[in-house]
């Protein structure tokens, strides 16, 4: 925006903007490369955490009453808890659990968004109004309250929290998908395809899907950190994963009882680990969106 405006006013672009013409391409390429690097690093870290966390789950629940309440040190990097469980392995296993739930919930939620967003765009005015109203309904109750209700309805536990996140997180992405499909339908190439006698299904698969896919994938990536955050929150409140499962929410809610005894490491490390995962995927999602949607790239 600012660079075109600078052009219109016949002034040189301010310093903080990349030079126009060839310089812009280079800047964009650099941005793209940085994005790919962040994406690869984040994905690799994700896989590493999932593999090690799942593989060493026994280490996360193994108790050792000779090594209770140890502060962080060489033997136990993140310390141990009141049952002598190693907090490093517990954190890893907890992250792995959270990531599994987050991936599943975010994917299902994104698919709901794709379905409802497309339906809203193509289903006629009534369907559109109904879905818009459904979005208002879902957003009309605070997420946490809705998650508690859904989790309660499903009898808590793994499915309670996963389904809860899946059915509450789709509205924003559904709006994006709806706008994209509407834009695509109005595009010339779809009209040409129709004139050429392509069926609706063919148009949907060959033209609409590739058009929507980039935004959809970015939306999926951005949903994932949200899903993890809410899973941890709901589990922390006692409506999510069961206490015997090592999950970040479980670890932190257990840690609460021991904070006054000075066992600060029970809360610090699992929380930092969670923030790092969420932050890196937020970053990846935002960077990807800049490439896919140049309108959001002004900054």
């Amino acid at each position, binding site marked *: 925006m600012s660079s075109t405006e600078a052009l219109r006013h016949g002034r040189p672009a301010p310093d903080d903007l990349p030079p126009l013409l060839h310089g812009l391409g280079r800047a964009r390429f650099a941005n793209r490369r940085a994005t790919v690097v962040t994406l690869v690093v984040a994905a690799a870290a994700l896989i590493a955490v999932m593999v090690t966390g799942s593989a060493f789950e026994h280490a996360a629940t193994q108790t050792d009453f000779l090594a209770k309440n140890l502060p962080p040190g060489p033997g136990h990097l993140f310390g141990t808890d009141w049952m002598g469980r190693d907090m490093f392995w517990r954190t890893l296993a907890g992250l792995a659990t959270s990531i599994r739930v987050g991936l599943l919930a975010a994917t299902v939620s994104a698919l709901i968004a794709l379905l409802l967003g497309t339906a809203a765009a193509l289903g006629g005015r009534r369907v559109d109004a109904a879905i818009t109203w459904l979005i208002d309904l879902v957003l009309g109750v605070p997420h946490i309250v809705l998650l508690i209700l859904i989790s309660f309805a499903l009898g*808590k536990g793994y499915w309670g929290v996963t389904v809860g996140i899946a059915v509450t997180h789709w509205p924003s992405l559904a709006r994006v998908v709806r706008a994209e499909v509407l834009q695509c339908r109005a595009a010339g190439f779809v009209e040409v395809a129709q004139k050429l006698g392509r069926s609706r299904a063919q148009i949907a698969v060959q033209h609409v899907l590739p058009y929507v896919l980039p935004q959809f994938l970015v939306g999926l990536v951005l949903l994932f950190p949200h899903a993890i955050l809410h899973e941890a929150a709901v589990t922390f409140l006692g409506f999510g994963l069961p206490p015997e499962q090592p999950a970040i929410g479980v670890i932190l809610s257990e840690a609460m009882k021991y904070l006054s005894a000075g066992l600060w490491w029970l809360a610090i490390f699992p929380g930092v680990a969670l923030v790092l995962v969420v932050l890196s995927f937020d970053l990846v999602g935002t960077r990807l969106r800049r490439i896919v949607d140049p309108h959001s790239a002004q900054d």
Partner: protein
Amino acid sequence: MGQWIGFGLRTLAKFALLMAAVSVVVFVLVSVSPIDPVQANVGQAAYVGMSEAKRAQLASYWGTDVPLAERYLNWATALLRGDLGTSLRFNAPVEQVIAQRAVNSLALMGIAWVASGLIGAALGVLAGVRRGGWVDRLIKGYCFVLASTPTFWLGLLLLVVFAVQLGWFPMGFSVPIGKSAADVTLADSLRHLALPALTLSVIGVSNIALHTREKTIDVLESDFVKFARSRGQGMRTVLRRHGLRNIALPALTLQFASLAEIFGGSVLVEQVFSYPGLGQAAITAGLGSDVALLAGIALFSAAFVFTGNLIANTLYAAVDPRILRGRRS
């Protein structure tokens, strides 16, 4: 004037429709739960040793033997009369529990709302003015990290630092333990409110700061600001004369529209600090299968969020009269 009446009527209809839908959804959700209220409240051991007749009596007391639709109608008609039922956990009418708890929650949320709004807007303006500089980057980074931080974990962190290690603030609750209600001073209450309010304020800053930053940049790039600057006005004067009005209203509107997030955050914060507000009551109700209270609080939260959105829309309408004619984008 006529436009405003139309706007009001439309809003009222919307509210009624939304609350009706929310009440159905909430009621179905709390009713289909496989967690048997009898078993959850009586306890496993007592339940097993209980006679069949006693179980039937309890089931009718909790209303589990009536069909769902009928139960909903009973509940909804009572609801319209302002009767939300009886809380089983607190052994009091639900509306009474909510009223009592809402005072605590609203105090907490009110402080956080004002503080996060003021600090967030200030940071946003600062970042926007210093766009691209290190101050901007610092504020942006700070907001980004905050957006990824779980509210409850931040609460735990502040608890560890200020209550456990430094001992400046109490560990939780809204009043000192063991003190009778009459002896509690305002200072006591404030000391107990400080950490929860701080947590909630810090988390709330992120959104408003980023939004205000965008707005500030937009305003600073507008023609009237450029003109004012070219006439030789300093940045401060420009901001005071032309910027703040354009920046403050969207910020205020956003702050009203984000009541859902503040409410959600307060649920988590109240649980961390054992603060006796609505959120903590909702959790107690959910864990203890106190269906009436859970449903009541859910309805309250929906009405709360709706009010926030309504104020936001009204503010918009006051600025942009096209909204009054119902042509919302």
